[in-house]
């Protein structure tokens, strides 16, 4: 059965991969049409990188905060964090960006597309991360808590020395996936005219009508950003591994 599945998966994926590659490669591209816009792609790519890196840090902080709220012994922070996570996860990012920029930001007199974009992305990704973090913390067996308690650790020490170091290992793969999503989700910031990578591609397309030539660079541009996250996550997993 295992052998059969192995062969089946290899054949199906291999064939699909070859077919798509052949279709894409055999298209008659007019690269000259987009050549004058090279600078737009590069500046868009840097904007995406910048906003993703800042939002990644922001989402980790917001995720950690929401996790501590959800695990709090008090009811109020628990309910508020839970509601925040449910609302953010249950509604489209596109709508959140629009509401954030056109309703909430003006109400406090804030006019920064980049700033609002970063904050909305951080909240969005932070809500998902907090669920991953919470799962990681709750997966640490109660015997570890008991042992820490017996030693005389406070709750804070238990988190710092026992729970978090073990939870990090467990949340790494899912977090890496979420970070890759964050990079790609930043493309929705075009609705508030943040000149990130996808926005630039849309503009090039509008100016040249060379649709494939305008959008194909996105594949490479985003992959260069997301693949290192995947590699880094694997190497960190090894570093934090404690099973033999």
């Amino acid at each position: 059965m295992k052998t059969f599945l192995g062969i089946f998966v290899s054949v199906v994926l291999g064939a699909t991969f070859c077919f798509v590659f052949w279709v894409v490669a055999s298209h008659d591209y007019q690269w000259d049409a987009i050549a004058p816009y090279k600078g737009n792609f590069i500046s868009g790519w840097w904007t995406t990188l910048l906003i993703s890196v800042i939002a990644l840090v922001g989402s980790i902080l917001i995720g950690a905060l929401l996790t501590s709220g959800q695990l709090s012994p008090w009811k109020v922070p628990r309910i508020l964090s839970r509601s925040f996570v449910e609302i953010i996860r249950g509604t489209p990012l596109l709508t959140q960006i629009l509401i954030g920029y056109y309703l909430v930001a003006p109400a406090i007199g804030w006019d920064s597309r980049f700033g609002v974009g970063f904050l909305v992305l951080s909240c969005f990704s932070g809500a998902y991360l907090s669920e991953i973090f919470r799962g990681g913390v709750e997966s640490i067996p109660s015997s570890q808590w008991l042992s820490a308690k017996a030693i005389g650790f406070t709750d804070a020490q238990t988190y710092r020395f026992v729970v978090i170091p073990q939870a990090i290992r467990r949340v790494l793969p899912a977090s890496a996936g979420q970070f890759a999503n964050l990079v790609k989700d930043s493309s929705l910031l075009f609705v508030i005219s943040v000149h990130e990578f996808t926005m630039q591609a849309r503009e090039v397309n509008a100016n040249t009508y060379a649709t494939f030539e305008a959008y194909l660079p996105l594949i490479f541009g985003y992959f260069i950003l997301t693949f290192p996250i995947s590699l880094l996550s694997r190497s960190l997993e090894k570093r934090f591994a404690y099973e033999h």
Partner: protein
Amino acid sequence: MSIETASLTKHYVETKAIDNVSVSIGDDVQVLALIGPSGGGKSTFLRLIGGLESPTSGEVMVNGIKLPVGDSALREWRKKNGFLFQSFNLFPHLTAEENVILPLVEVHQSSREDAKNRAQEMLSRFGLTKHLGKKPGQLSGGQQQRVALARAIANKPQWLLLDEPTSALDPEMKAEVLDLIEELQKSGQKIILSTHEMGFARRASDHVIFLSDGQKLEEGNAEELFENPKTAEVKLFLEKVMKW
């Protein structure tokens, strides 16, 4: 140092784990054994005495002074004792040596160097010199329990509390760990243990409490209790477990 309990009671939602137990463990008792059928309340009793849990009602007195109620207030009492659990409960992300060092540094404010020396001294005393740098997952059950024992006594505890320390071990490893416990007993360490090892309880302890259904059925000198049990239930239990 004496330990007394007065009408000690611990109820969980639907079970009476410990029901109105009063005992008096005099200063002369060096090793106290808690015996009885599984689910009889041995572990709960041990945890109440060790301050890992607070009673529903009744009290524990150490040298005539009542133990405080509440988790953080009990921490000071826990810090003075050493615990060992059935399932070892070592921290899997730390090496054997780090498992012993961590509480010394973080709870007992030893310098890192002193803690390291103490850890090496304890682990080599328990025949684990070769395994200092290994993580629990790389050690056998018996070795893990010896590391846990080293961690429990590294801070020279007033009482060493052992909760069925050999139940999860095969016979050979059981013997290794029991040898060490006996060695500690001979060196004057005060011990309270819950155990199913009747032979060991009889040989090593000087006072025995028999708990069943959360209640104390008998209490007394080890030799006397094993030779002449007063109640029919204790007599039947001992006949059953000593038969093989």
